[in-house]
């Protein structure tokens, strides 16, 4: 109902727009009343049946169209300036006044990325974090946001040097809390960005990672794990496996966790991380240990690099993407339940499609050694030793820690008479394995472990000794094996 009843829609045009109001959209705040210098506006005494409020009433006869009431009304569709002759009918349906089309923004479209051939290059000799940084560049990442923390900083330092040479952006954030939110913004804009951090810094990023998962934004986080808890030390540990697999901030959150074990994998898995992050619109975590960050080795470069496109869902700040919005809030319970079902479905798809692992002499293995990151290298050496001593040992190395590569493990468990977990940490990889095995409904053979903490890595001879003890052999004195 039109309430401009004093002269109403048929009032003569005064040359200036006059306030027009659909009473349903008036919240009766009355801010327009003192704004009017001619006292044209009063509160109605009639209660509007739809809103339960008493909307204001405008006296169009006295109104001179000064417009001050319009800029006093806080509602977008409250008092609206209209020319008198525009109003020639009584309105009931807002769609008639405002139209049925909700936005003029176009439908966003995907701009696909491309793969470009790289020149043929000799293998490089790279530190682990540097290999990862170069992997990021080859994966099309031109934006880095981070905060310095040992032992991850060399990766950031290299990107600080290289990105500007490629007209990319390096931002040293005020904190890890800020860094992850810059990644949220850059990922939200549809671009590839990453950070290098280490355990205490990663803890600070968890809030933002939960938001990214909720808002379905991509971004790559390299956690070069160090000794903890607390400030701990700067030596290598694997004590954040629980955090990256089970504790990515609040809520129903998961992310693919990739665990490299050589400088070569630091590059390869960083490139993969970007691909997976955009494929699933979800952060991807690279979990390395402090050793891997520091170790220098030979790295073969890929034959192709990535020139990223721009995904349809991005909020890029251009016409094509105007329709989009990024949020992790869903106020209505049913909406949030639906969103969680969608996320769970995504996690299930990831669990089916993205399990990755490597094996070494597992075909006939009776003793299965399970390790990831640097400890897997020691474990591999131990397998070689043990084989030389006639023990059928094999190494199962998870490359994805989440999802745990249970599909690869199950057939090996059929033959295994024992499992030996090797960890530079308190058994968090073992927990992941036990959980996955439990979900699979399979019985584990006897499990033993070699665990070191605080930055001490399990050494090959310790693995040898534990394996010999498990298999009922006595440990012979260490001879000329690899050191």
């Amino acid at each position, binding site marked *: 109902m039109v309430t401009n009843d004093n002269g109403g829609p048929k009032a003569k045009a005064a040359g200036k727009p006059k306030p027009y109001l659909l009473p349903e959209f008036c*919240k009766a*705040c*009355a*801010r327009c009343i003192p*704004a009017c210098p001619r006292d044209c506006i009063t509160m109605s005494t009639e209660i509007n049946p739809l*809103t339960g409020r008493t909307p204001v009433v405008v006296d169009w006869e006295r109104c001179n169209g000064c417009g*001050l009431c319009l*800029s006093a*009304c*806080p*509602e*977008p*569709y409250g008092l609206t300036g209209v020319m008198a002759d525009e109003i020639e009918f009584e309105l009931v349906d807002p*769609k008639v006044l*405002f139209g049925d*089309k909700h*936005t003029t*923004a176009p439908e966003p479209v995907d701009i696909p990325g491309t793969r470009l051939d790289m*020149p043929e*290059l*000799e293998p*490089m*000799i790279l530190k682990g974090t540097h290999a990862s940084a*170069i992997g990021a560049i080859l994966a099309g990442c031109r934006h880095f*946001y981070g905060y310095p923390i040992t032992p991850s900083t060399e990766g950031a330092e290299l990107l600080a040097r290289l990105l500007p040479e490629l*007209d*990319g952006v390096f*931002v040293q954030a*005020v904190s890890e*809390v*800020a*860094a*992850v*939110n*810059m990644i949220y*913004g850059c990922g939200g*804009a*549809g671009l590839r960005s990453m950070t290098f951090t280490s355990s205490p810094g990663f803890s600070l990023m968890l*809030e*933002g990672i939960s*938001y990214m998962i909720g808002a379905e934004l991509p971004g790559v986080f390299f956690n070069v794990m160090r000794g903890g808890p607390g400030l701990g030390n700067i030596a290598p540990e694997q004590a954040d496996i629980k955090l990256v697999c089970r504790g990515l901030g609040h809520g129903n959150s998961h992310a693919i966790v990739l665990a490299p074990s050589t400088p070569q994998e630091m590059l390869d898995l960083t490139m993969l991380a970007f691909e997976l992050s955009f494929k699933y619109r979800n952060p991807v975590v690279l979990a390395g240990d402090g*050793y891997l960050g*520091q170790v220098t*080795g*030979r790295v073969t*470069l890929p034959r192709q690099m990535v020139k990223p496109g721009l995904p349809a869902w991005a*909020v*890029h*700040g251009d016409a094509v993407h105007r329709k989009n*919005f*990024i*949020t*992790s*809030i869903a106020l209505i319970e049913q909406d949030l339940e639906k969103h969680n079902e969608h996320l769970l479905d995504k996690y299930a798809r990831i669990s089916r499609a993205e399990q990755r692992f490597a094996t070494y002499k597992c075909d006939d293995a009776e003793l299965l050694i399970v390790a990831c990151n640097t400890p897997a*290298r*020691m474990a591999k050496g131990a397998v070689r030793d043990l084989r030389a001593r006639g023990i059928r040992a094999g190494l199962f190395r998870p490359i994805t820690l989440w999802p745990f590569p249970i599909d690869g493990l199950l057939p090996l468990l059929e033959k295994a008479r024992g499992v030996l977990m090797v960890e530079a940490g308190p058994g968090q990889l073992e927990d992941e394995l036990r959980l996955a095995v439990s979900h699979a409904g399979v019985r584990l053979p006897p499990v033993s472990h070699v665990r070191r903490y605080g930055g001490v890595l399990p*050494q090959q*001879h310790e693995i040898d000794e534990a394996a010999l003890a498990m298999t009922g052999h006595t440990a012979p004195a260490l001879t000329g094996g*690899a*050191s």
Partner: protein
Amino acid sequence: MSVFFENFDRHAHGEGLKGHSTHYCAGCGHGLIQKFLAEAIEELGIQDRTVAISPVGCSVFMYYYLDVGNTQAAHGRAPAVAIGHKTANPNAIVVSYQGDGDLASIGLAEIMQACQMGMPMTFLFVNNAIYGMTGGQMAPTTLPGQKTMTTPKGRPPITGQPLRMAEIVAQIDGPVYVERCALFDAKQRNRTKKAIHKALQLQVENRGLSFVEILAECPTHLKLSPVEAEQWVKDKMLPFFPLGVKKDEVREPWFNLGTPSFDPQRIASVIGGTDHAPERFGGGFPTHLHEHDVAIKFAGAGGDGAQTIAMLITKAAINEGWDSTHIPSYGPESRGGTSYADVHIADGEVLSPACPHPQVLVAFNPPSLEKFGPTVRPGGIVIYDSSVIPQPPDLGDRITMIGVPCTAIAQELGKVMAKNMVALGALQAATNVFPAESFLSMLRKVLQNNCAMLELNEAAFERGQQAAVRQSQAAV
């Protein structure tokens, strides 16, 4: 009105009245500010380029209303999210819209950094002296004595004084324009509208960061009518939060990030890639040291150059076609602490990169030799700096001890720093892990941009070789 959605589909699915009404309480200042923002976006013709960042607080749902690119940020983090958006697309017009809890409490670090960086972005700071969404608790801008749910007897002195953000921000070099406005009468609303327009325009012109603080009404939690709330802002807030322009600097357009390159040739060059295959000088794997995995430990103090020669030998080994790793280990000090390096050279794949039991140890000082000497495998070689270790410990007759006066030789050559190269020369001669030329060619490559140092280093290497040979002969 085109910058507002014609129907608020994101507001409870746009059904019923919610399709055209905001979620704000009657008389709330947010509605006005968002109206002025929408008008300015329209006037400047930047609807397509705008990315509006909603905070946590009552304006969390700003994206219900504004038909622009929208991003909702975590509490207080909007300035960081804004930096992400602006650096991703410098052409985007990024507006961070934040309340007093968001900007002046939990997000202080983020707003400080954004202002310090000064990238052209627009910050609208809505100061209503109270927490709205969580139900009327104390804000950093709550007035002394003001009753809130967490200051039930009025804001006590122990909680300090209201934080004046516009003045704080104006002190920082980054922003070009800072103003505090209000909404309590037509004149103030007009100023606010102009300020928002200007703040956006300065971004469009790439001149810098703008910050507009707006004193707004929260009638619900002030427990006042909207019109009384206007009066309250005018009477109570103004004495603490004086209105006006706090900073207005003329700055030439400066913001230009360039377009990231994805040219493979350029990238290959930037990452230091080369198609030039390195020359090989060695024959087979140094099986006289170990059949497939040689472990060498270097140990000294920071500054001894252990890491440098460890890296050199790693690079030489990889050039010779083997797998090799180098892993450093430092004390907590950046300079002057302990500095150890473990190197492995393997014919197949280096497994454990650590050297708990090396075949070769190079020790630069007594503690290093004492610590690692006993870990050397039987049949192994220890090279130590006899200038600083005159009395080496007895490691038994299965260890070959080669004392080389690395420091003294380097001093003679005029640079103590070169002692690591003396040690490397000694290592080459004593172990013959690779031919000398393998090291020297790598040295030339490493020093290609610092030729002045090459001669000295080559001389040091040679003197180390000679000293080691003399020692070995003496031992025989």
